């Protein structure tokens, strides 16, 4: 049974998104919530890359000895890859800020439980 790899890739991206939202919502440990959010971002990145897939596509660099019409028809779509690179950087910087906040809160409260640290303080 030959399965379309792009379709399977979309399903993987979708399941990563769902697992990420589940982890962010239901797990109590802050680090596990953050890993869930990383899953969510990775799922979206995989979705973007899968969208740029072209069966039999060549790398989108126009070398001097190429014919334009050939290149236009066979090159894979370059825009999604640029978006993913930017998104990975955004995800990394946000992750750094979140982890910094978690370190400080862990020092203050001595625990990593979201229901203890991030509950309603009644103000």
């Amino acid at each position: 049974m030959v399965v379309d790899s792009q379709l399977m890739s979309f399903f993987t991206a979708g399941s990563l998104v769902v697992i990420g939202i589940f982890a962010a919502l239901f797990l109590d440990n802050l680090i596990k919530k953050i890993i869930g959010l990383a899953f969510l971002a990775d799922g979206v990145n995989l979705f973007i890359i899968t969208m740029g897939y072209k069966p039999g596509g060549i790398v989108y660099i126009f070398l001097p000895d190429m014919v334009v019409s050939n290149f236009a028809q066979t090159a894979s779509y370059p825009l999604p890859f640029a978006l993913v690179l930017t998104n990975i950087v955004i995800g990394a910087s946000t992750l750094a800020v979140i982890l910094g906040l978690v370190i400080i809160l862990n020092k203050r409260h001595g625990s990593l439980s979201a229901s203890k640290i991030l509950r309603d303080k009644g103000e």
Partner: protein
Amino acid sequence: MSFYDIILKRIRKIQEKAEEEEPITNVTASAMLTAELTLIASVLVAVVMVRLIHPVLMIIMIAAVLIIALMAMPIMPRLRREQNDDLNNMMFYVVVALGIIVALFYWGNLNV
């Protein structure tokens, strides 16, 4: 006892159940009452907009909202307790809202 006093007593009872340590002043109880009346009035007026879909549906919905509001009268203390700063609470409502938005946009287009 007048109607106002009955409502005030019921609100204080619910507030006392919610926050035992906090002193209940007249200011907070009257604030709850104001918020309650504002909430019910705004929701009723908003429901009148259903007349654009079907006038009979609007009458049914107004009657339903009135009955539900009068039966569950001190809605505001419960609403206030529900909209707290707890992360789990907020995330729950966020995901529920996401589900509602996706479902509404997906199928809400069909009848408009």
